[in-house]
């Protein structure tokens, strides 16, 4: 009975700390922000009676509790094929430290394509947990626009969710492109497509073609020197064999990439005018940008 009660509850705190808060950090795009970051996992129900695992990385205080300053805008993240959610924690930590709450559905077998509505279900769960007593109480504002980011195969799944669920107002394709059957040309909401120049896993022509189908405000960026597995930690041998080598320091290349991602999120989720201007200008260090 105790187990049943635990299962039925919203996540209780504190979370596992990933980063201590520090007012010394600028939080400029491409850099960590002043918030701490912590993660927590919980389960929710999907498709009547399936269990869906959800990982949330949130702005935290030094003890792993939700930081003051919320509610925080939501960024849903969809993992790449056969890549674990945990391998993207560097990115989730960066986003949380800048004041975003990251929610990632944990897909069966690491294949998001098995259930392309999992991120929407995970977002609903976070919204419910935000209204209940627990670690994430007050963390988000239900109904507020969210962004969805996906890497590789996760980007294709994220595009499906972006098209089918208007809560996801903004789409970020990280080394990815929408599938042919996903009608992204019918959506006029903002989107970002960003890929590394040294990425030999994804077909750059398909990335470019997918980007051209986007009908709303859009930005295309090619991060000079970044490859495919540079987007996640602890790549396996199979990830490295198929990919090109990094051409530069990974930390620098990631900073160049996240400078664009952070600017995109700041511009649309926060309606930050400086970020909107930066997107319009399209000048980012280490990134070739086209409108």
């Amino acid at each position, binding site marked *: 009975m105790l*187990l*049943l009660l635990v*299962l*039925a509850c919203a996540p209780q705190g504190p979370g596992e700390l990933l980063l201590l808060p520090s007012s010394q950090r600028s939080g400029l795009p491409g850099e960590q922000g002043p918030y701490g970051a912590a993660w927590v996992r919980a*389960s*929710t*129900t*999907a*498709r*009547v*009676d*399936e*269990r869906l695992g959800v990982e949330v990385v949130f702005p935290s205080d030094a003890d792993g509790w939700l930081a003051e300053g919320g509610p925080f805008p939501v960024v849903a993240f969809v993992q790449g094929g056969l890549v674990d959610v945990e391998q993207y924690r560097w990115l989730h930590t960066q986003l949380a430290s800048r004041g975003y709450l990251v929610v990632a559905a944990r897909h*069966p*077998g690491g294949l998001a*394509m*098995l*259930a*392309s*509505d999992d991120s*929407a*279900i995970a977002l*609903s*769960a976070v919204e*419910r947990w935000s209204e209940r007593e627990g670690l994430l109480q007050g963390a988000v504002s239900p109904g507020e626009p969210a962004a969805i980011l996906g890497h590789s195969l996760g980007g294709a799944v994220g595009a*499906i*969710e972006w098209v*089918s669920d208007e809560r996801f107002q903004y789409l970020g394709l990280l080394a990815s492109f929408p599938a042919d059957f996903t009608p992204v040309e019918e959506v006029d909401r903002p989107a970002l497509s960003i890929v590394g120049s040294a990425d030999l896993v994804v077909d750059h022509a398909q990335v470019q073609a997918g980007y051209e189908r986007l009908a709303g405000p859009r930005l295309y960026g090619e991060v000079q020197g970044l490859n495919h597995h540079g987007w996640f930690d602890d790549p396996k041998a199979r990830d490295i064999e198929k990919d090109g080598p990094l051409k530069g320091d990974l930390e620098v290349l990631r900073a160049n990439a996240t400078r664009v991602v952070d600017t995109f999120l700041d511009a649309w989720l926060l309606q930050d005018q400086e970020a909107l201007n930066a997107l319009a200008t399209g000048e980012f260090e280490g990134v070739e940008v086209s409108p």
Partner: protein
Amino acid sequence: MIALLLVGVAFADPLALRATSLDGQAAGVLGLPLSSVGLWAEDWGLAVGSRELTGLTVEGVRRMRRDAGQTELQIHGGLGLLWLEPGLSGQLGLSLLRREESRHLGWTGSFSLPWSMRLLGASPLDRPEVRLPVMVGNQLRFKIGELHVGPLAELGVVSVPGRPLSLAAQVGLTVGD
């Protein structure tokens, strides 16, 4: 008695009862996502099951024999108590099975519609939710001594109105007498 060791993802079905329709009177399913036990009384069956601790379901099955028992239609329905997100569920489904048996080898092909609906409580999508899987399965059965042993695999899609289609798959191993 038939026991099933099952691993897989994303779908619920009164699998124990379908397995027993090979020749058994009782069945058990152990594993993820589905665990269940079932009993037959003539052409009626009853199964109690749980999926990944999301709840407890009780389902009845009516077996309709045709073609000297080689082709079979099953109608199953029941109720579930869900506790991960509190609520009730209802199940209603059809399964069509075709069996071929030789002295040492058995094969069962299945086409199933194990549909379910969330009845009460908070829905994950904040609206009534219906789950409509369409599944196709294959099950082999070998005679090893006094035991029957065989693999099982099912694939399909799950439709939830208003949501994109999801894929569903599960594999299992049957052991029985």
